[in-house]
């Protein structure tokens, strides 16, 4: 399977008024890889993820996922096809417990037809052994198995972030979009999150696109990265090549003339 493009982004643009947040970007993501999306602030990295998961509408260009043209699909249909997303802020279902959050994440696996949605009580679905096992396995995977019945908002930031990943993984996605998973974490939490991301990719074969500012983490995680600047693709290659590229250094730090 490796080597085939799971996601093909062609000539993608998104305008906010006169501003081109993403400007004619083309990227192919191969099945099973971890792709790093890097660039200075305001480069259009998060917009790119929003376009891929459907939170934002595309201005022009196409997105194809596993052969489906998903350019005009709403977010939930993209989720059906196997795209999951971890948002930059800790987006969780705030009124729910840790376990319920993961259960909501596995909605696609537990949903019923219209009559089933009404015919079954929530209590019954919640107690189904296979659903429970699926959720507990995920919580064990991210290390939250002994906090299942706490309200998710009572968790510390790092654990909330891990829960976000568990919620996204609950639908067994083929493509996981991570928006700055390491922001605001201490060294220990960072290591734990990197281990989780690597393990997801290795054991489940999930393709991952990660937007991250922590360059060292990107170097450790990704085999390939794409650099964006002012909404345009600057370069792509291995993270080391990218970081050494004069154009990338210029984008991050400016030129001598700027300083002078």
């Amino acid at each position, binding site marked *: 399977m490796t080597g085939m493009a799971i996601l093909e982004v062609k000539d993608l643009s998104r305008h906010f008024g006169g501003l081109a947040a993403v400007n004619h970007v083309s990227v192919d993501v191969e099945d099973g890889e971890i792709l790093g999306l890097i660039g200075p602030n305001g480069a259009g990295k998060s917009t790119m993820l929003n376009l891929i998961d459907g939170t934002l509408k595309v201005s022009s260009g196409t997105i194809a996922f596993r052969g489906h043209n998903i350019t005009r699909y709403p977010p*939930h249909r993209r989720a059906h096809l196997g795209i999951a997303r971890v948002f930059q802020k800790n987006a969780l279902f705030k009124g729910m417990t840790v376990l319920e959050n993961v259960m*909501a994440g596995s909605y696609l696996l537990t949903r019923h037809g219209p009559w089933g*949605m*009404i015919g079954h009580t*929530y209590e019954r*679905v919640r107690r189904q052994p296979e659903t429970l096992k699926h959720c507990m396995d995920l919580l064990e995977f991210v290390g939250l198995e002994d906090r299942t019945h706490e309200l998710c908002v009572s968790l510390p930031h790092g654990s909330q972030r891990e829960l976000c990943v568990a919620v996204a993984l609950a639908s067994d996605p083929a493509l996981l979009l991570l928006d700055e998973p390491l922001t605001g974490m201490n060294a220990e939490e960072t290591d734990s999150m990197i281990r989780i991301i690597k393990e997801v990719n290795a054991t489940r074969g999930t393709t991952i696109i990660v937007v991250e500012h922590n360059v060292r983490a990107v170097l450790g995680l990704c085999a390939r990265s794409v650099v964006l600047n002012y909404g345009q693709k600057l370069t792509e290659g291995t993270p080391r090549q990218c970081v050494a590229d004069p154009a990338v250094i210029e984008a991050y730090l400016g030129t001598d003339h700027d300083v002078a």
Partner: protein
Amino acid sequence: MSKRGGIKTAIWVAILLIVVFMPQILRGNAYWITVIALLAINVLLVSSLRSITLINEISLGQVGFVVIGAYVHATLMMKGHVNFWASLIISALVAAFIALILAYPFLKVRGIYFSILTLLTAETFRLVAYYWTSMTGGSLGLTGVPGPGKVHIAGALVDFNKPGNYYYIAIGIVVIALLILYYLERAYISFPWRAIKDDNTLAGAVGINVIGYKMVNFVIAAFMAGLSGAVFASFQHNLSPDSTSRFGVTMSIYLLVYMVVGGKDYFVGPLLGTAVLTLLAEETRFMQEYQPMIIGAIAILVMIFMPMGLVGLPRQIKSSWRTRKLTTLAAAEDARRPATAAAGEATAVGAGAPATAPPAAAPSEKTGQG
């Protein structure tokens, strides 16, 4: 747990018995029977409003679907001579169908925009009823809306057009409708609703068809509002689309107040809020001109001092009492450690605060979970 469940069931059975035997208790006092029947109809309406809060939206337009339900029911019965029960269902379905048409554009917007759209729609429906004179009688109103008429029950001829007898039909329909709403809140469909309530975007990202589930919720609520309108039309026998009638904007605001005063997080909130405020309004009828002021003051006081409403009051008292107890315990704990406390006070006044804060904060977290 089971003991508390038993007490709850007993309370419900008692309430139901009182409601069922109300005409006997009141010895056929037509005035109070009318008040209580209207109260029940309003409970259904407020419950339909609360049902929309399950997707974190506030509709100010439930009255609009009441207008549709009431006038469709009246027209079907007066001009089409349709059977009462069929007409009841059809008019509720018409309200639901109109909601279905409106649902997509309405639910694409959120929060205050949704509220404004629903408010204006309700007003539009009322004005249509006001100006479509040939159909609705216009400002003169529509009089003579029939009830189910005379029915043979166990050999006796019962005239259900009389308020005392129609009371049972109204109560019966409201109870069944409330049971349906209650069940829906426990059905699996309520789980995606909860997810949408907590986070729209994330709900979409995990594969929930956000707009679809919202539409289902909105349509069900409109059905219930339409049903309450139809029940009302046959009870009151005459309908007026005047702005001071129960089809006006003021009614929408009152419904909201009923819900908030009762407690919008609880299913029985609308019941309690509507009952308390309606009975209060009846008792203060002698100072009618001040009533909006009184209701407004109650709404403000409840929102400030009882954010969880009347139903949430026991829980609120319990939790504040527990917090206070734990804070006193923490203070006592500090007093028992004179060395550190004295040192803290000696060095800086501010140092005393962090010393007491952690023990007080930790237990309050626990109470939140319990």
